[in-house]
């Protein structure tokens, strides 16, 4: 399982493994790492908005809802300060699909804007 460390905000806040983008998002002040791609048609989940109860992310493309509980559980991660280390399960990578092309093992860092509702709130202490 690849272990990747990246920033929780700003430049380099998205790690792309085999073309799959992962970001750190926050819902109800609790953070998690998620695949920033809607399971429906690949919409930008990093630009989604949580439902009022925080239970789902609503994709901006087709308003498809994805369970936050499921996303939270998917990728084990630990944030230290403004960086997060995530252990990406093989099942979360595109190569896990039966018809997927072979993994090229590429890892890169990019910037992906997050919808304000998913961005980490600034410390208020």
């Amino acid at each position, binding site marked *: 399982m690849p*272990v990747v460390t990246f920033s929780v905000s700003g430049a380099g806040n998205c790690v792309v493994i085999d073309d799959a983008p992962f970001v750190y998002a926050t819902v109800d002040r609790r953070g*998690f790492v998620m695949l920033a791609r809607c399971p429906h048609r690949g919409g930008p989940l990093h630009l989604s908005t949580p439902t009022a109860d925080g239970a789902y992310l609503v994709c901006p493309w087709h308003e498809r809802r994805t369970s936050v509980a499921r996303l939270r559980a998917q990728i*084990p*991660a*630990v944030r*230290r*300060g403004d960086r997060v280390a995530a252990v990406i399960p093989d099942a979360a990578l595109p190569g896990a699909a039966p018809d997927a092309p072979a993994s090229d093992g590429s890892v890169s860092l990019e910037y992906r804007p997050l919808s304000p509702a998913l961005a980490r709130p600034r410390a208020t*202490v």
Partner: protein
Amino acid sequence: MSHVPPHVPYELTGAELRDAVVQYATNPIYLDHDDWENDDNPYRRQLRPQILPHLDLEAVPGRENILNYPSLAVQRLLTCIYEADLVFFPKSGIEGREADFNAFYSPSNRALGERVRPALERYGFGFLDAEVETSGKWTAESLHSYLDSLVPDTAAEEGSPAEQAIRGSADPARAARMWLAQFAPDFLSEASPMIRNVLGYYGAPQSEWFKIIIDEFGYGVHRTKHSTLFENTLESAGLKSDVHRYWQYYLNSSLLLNNYFHYLGKNHELFFRYAGALYYTESSLVDFCRRADRLLREVFDGAVDTTYFTEHVHIDTHHGRMAREKIIEPLVAAHGEGVIPEIVRGIEEYRVLLEVADADFSAQIAWMDDQPELKKLHDPVYEGVRLGRVDAPVAHIVEPRGELSNTHCHDGDELCHIVSGTMRFESGLGSSLTLRDGEGVVIKRNRLHGANIESDECVYEIHSVGDYRKCLS
């Protein structure tokens, strides 16, 4: 069933907390000292109780404020409270110090300490809740990958920021002594916090953990006990090795690091976090000790006993492996993957504390090195204050000869201005200035310092300028 009133968890807040802290710290053994060092008396620890009524110890500081004075006060308090569980005797025996011995281990001191400990721990370590956050469903396999990925931050050849600060210091030997003094609270009672984890019963990992402790204790051969090795290091570097001699020179973060392990060991609900911190400590110490050995021999031209560090280069190779294979993995197998986030959290919290300690120590060495410049800076800053460039509250102080302001720090920059008399301004172990009429020094935020009056009387002013740069045109 008869009526049972609802359970109310224990919590101390507000005036009750403040009064309880003051009651604890006014024990005579915690009052100010008239010397910079404690002389072979492990029970005397200066807590500056006169300041405590003015501190808010409830609102948990964020990381950006963790080196402020209230945090230093809390870490000093916690060190005393935790160490009432340990046994200390003066090297020269307790004769003549019986009253201090009894005062430190008295039921009153212990009970008063325990009463405030939860609130002080919340204040001292609460910032870690915001600094470290685990998420996702961790499995034994993902933990394995994560542990494999851990490369100690300080593995680079150039060393940690603290080590670089020593090498780059204007006085590397002085900086190295200050560094060694920071380890004394931990290394002179080495493994004592850890021992808290081998009491009770929890199966095979308990015995495995005990093996690590056996190593730390030198297999019952006193000359090989790790604390003995460290005493040799201290003495060979020109320092004394009695417990808490250098209490007033401990940095906030040095106490924070040491107290963290007592905190985890004292509160067994944090047991799994301790297991994680243990793994990271033991595995990262190998590189650290290898570099420390080289650094100390370099600084002291080979005339220093570094066996403490070379011993750890060897034994911690085993301890890192033992912590992972014999403690962490069996604990996960026995108690389920639900304990993994706590293990991971312990690792990452310890890494946060290492970062804090590195930054704190480096800043202190720079502060010690910069003393002559900060003395020169007095004149333009004082001029700025005089011209009203900042609205700085001022304290007018008159003190007699021998009045020693025990070490402390401030939450913003201050300017010390001597009106008349002579002051020795202490900025670290082996680092001081003499200030006379019309002179002074810029005191930087969070930097440990103290003062002693060396004339019959000294009249001086402390201007709380906040940011000294605002006083300059």
